[in-house]
């Protein structure tokens, strides 16, 4: 009985920690110990707080968010849709990792089809299908996305990642459209991607020389010369 009380007190003191007062390293360690106790609904408030910190300081910890979602799953009465929207936005920022997918397996389908979550599922769908132009239109139509620091930057980085594994060269105008940047912005953006990205007049080379895939169904003269004696005989 006494032990139990002591344990409760200990737990309470853990929950009293002021997250904002900790430095980044201590905070991470604290969150890790917190989510080790992953079936205790009392930690949900702290995790929600930490989610806001993740958004404001542009850091990311998937386990903390998935633990929070699990707590909602186990305690449906505590479910907080706004918090789910925030963690989904963070998971979109971590594309192409499948974090969004993993979270969506644990969100009741009825609330997936309603706001505030619907806009996130719509965006996920557009990005998964690589319909980048429509995705930008959708992002620009919802003020929710611009309220999250670095959201557009991260999405843009994801898109340029996909483009650079797909295209060797792409026209400047097309790139501009897909990344949703103005003529002056695109030049600056490309310069941040040096030396892999290079502008050649109206086209942009997205792959560095050495990573160019060689055509594979040809073989070299060297290989051929080694087997030639066999044919001559």
């Amino acid at each position: 009985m006494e032990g139990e009380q002591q344990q409760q007190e200990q737990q309470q003191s853990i929950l009293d920690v002021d997250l904002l007062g900790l430095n980044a390293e201590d905070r991470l360690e604290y969150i890790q110990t917190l989510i080790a106790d992953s079936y205790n609904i009392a930690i949900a408030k702290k995790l929600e707080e930490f989610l806001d910190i993740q958004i404001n300081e542009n850091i990311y910890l998937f386990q903390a968010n998935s633990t929070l979602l699990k707590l909602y799953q186990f305690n449906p009465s505590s479910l907080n849709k706004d918090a789910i929207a925030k963690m989904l936005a963070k998971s979109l920022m971590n594309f192409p990792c499948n974090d969004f997918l993993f979270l969506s397996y644990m969100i009741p389908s009825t609330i997936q089809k309603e706001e505030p979550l619907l806009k996130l599922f719509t965006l996920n769908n557009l990005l998964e299908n690589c319909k980048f132009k429509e995705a930008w239109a959708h992002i620009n139509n919802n003020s929710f996305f611009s309220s999250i620091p670095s959201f557009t930057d991260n999405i843009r980085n994801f898109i340029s990642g996909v483009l650079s594994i797909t295209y060797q060269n792409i026209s400047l105008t097309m790139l501009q459209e897909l990344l949703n940047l103005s003529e002056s912005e695109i030049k600056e953006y490309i310069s941040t991607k040096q030396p892999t990205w290079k502008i050649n007049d109206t086209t942009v080379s997205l792959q560095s020389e050495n990573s160019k895939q060689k055509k594979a169904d040809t073989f070299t003269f060297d290989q051929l010369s080694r087997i030639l004696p066999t044919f001559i005989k």
Partner: protein
Amino acid sequence: MQNNNNNRKGGNKQQQGGNNNQQRQGGNKNANYNKQQGGQQGGNQQGGNQQKGRKIPTNVESFPITLTPAQVQQHQQYQQSMQNNQSGQFQSSYLPPAQQLFTPVINYFVNFFTNFKSQSHSDILVSYDNFFKSCETYYSNCALPTIDVFLAVLGDKYEDTFTDRFFVLLYREIYYRYYFALVSQPNIGICVESWRNYSAIFDTLLEAATPNEVEIDLPNAWLWDIVDEFVYQYHTFAKFKLKKVDVDQLTEIWDTTSVIRYLYLIIKKSQIFSANSSRFENATDDFCSHPVYKMLGYYSVISLVRVQCLLGDYTLALKTLELIDMGKKAMYTYVTACHITLYYYLGFAYLMSRKYNEATKALNTILVSVASKTKSQNFQSDHNEKKIDKMYALLAICQALYPNKIDENVNNTLKEKFGDKLLKLQKGDISVYEELYSYSSPRCINAVNPHLSGHSSNALDAHRLQMALFLEEVKQQSLLTTIRSYITLYSTISIQKLAGLLQIDPEELRIKLTCYKHKNVNVLGKGETKYHNQVDIDFYIDQDMIHIDNRLYAKETDSFINSILKFEGSLTPQYNWM
């Protein structure tokens, strides 16, 4: 050989219950199967009786069992409802009590009890199996006799020691397991009683201060059956349509958090994952050296993975699995049913994580391993057989989404079982994906019964959600397989031309091609963070041209050149020094 057969026996018991929809047929099939079994092994034990199949032998001595007033009342209710309603709704949740006690069953039971006290693995396993077999013969349509009936039989032999008391708990577990095997959705009373019994078993084990107190030893197959049945009953209960009246009775009964807590506590108590160093210091509370704790802890990890998959938390499931040593001679291979269960959920979790190549690898491994086992042991239990079929279906899905090299024998069996389906999958037929998915996937569940949470009134919701998300993913991939088949034919092709061939807009084709790349990146191996594409065909776009890199042919060219050089070398050794 003997041991393995016994394992299968235990697994087979659950299979009846696992087979909810086909309860009736399942029951019959199993009875036939037991008959064959008896013919093979138990022929000399039971003599000619076996030939009569399910009929209880007439020349066996039997004693009537006096039922308790509660049992009598319930049985009368049952008989009434049978008379009023031929379809027997009541029947599906209730088993009539055993009314007679047969001499062979008594003998098997006494033998079972004596062997249990002897703590010899092989003896316990043999009598565990024999007892089950006799019960299937004599109590094919009713519940087993309760422990009180048997305790009366044991008389002075029962000494009320720790071992004896624990045996009582374990017998009750068998009693409920038998009940769940014959009835697809037992009445709430049975569920509550069974839960309390599991609590008693686990609490006893968890409360022990030193491993020496726990004077019991159980064969691995039995331990696996206990943990596996625990999760099975939880799963059955979660699929229940609860009535308002029932809800009031429940607090922590079969609650997800309680189930997970027990599994966690057992793992913790077993100390299988604690550092080796601490073991030498306090040898007295080293629970890991106690085989019961060690294996129970191990099986709890596997069962925990299963629960996590059922709840849709695939990241956590895969993370939990990292705890387990996946080597060839790992502990999960001791019991075939466990081996199969582990890989089934591993494959499924990978599939849902879009790691199709990892899923293929896992499924391929287990299917190779069970194929070699089948040869040495003439039969497989229905339960395992069914899981294996499901795994082939999962493999077909993986192969359609992300073709990968698999074992030749496995590939042949795959084509035998799902050849026509596989072709349809490759053509992107969503209805076939849906069919195979609903056949092969576990029924996912809500963590909290919808009747309690009030969020949705549909218990199937969780399962439908998983399927909808999976099919969404397949739809996103659908045109990609077609594109793949076209670009194999070219080394370069313009976007315009390919769009014409596919009869889609060039802009849309660009999107699809980008998507193809994106999806392949998504399919990453374990812990890989680098973009890596293992599919045999790859391409890149240079403005308006698609350049195709067909690694399949590249490999052939290479291997031809290498073979020529190799044979040339071996035929004419003088070239080497000339």
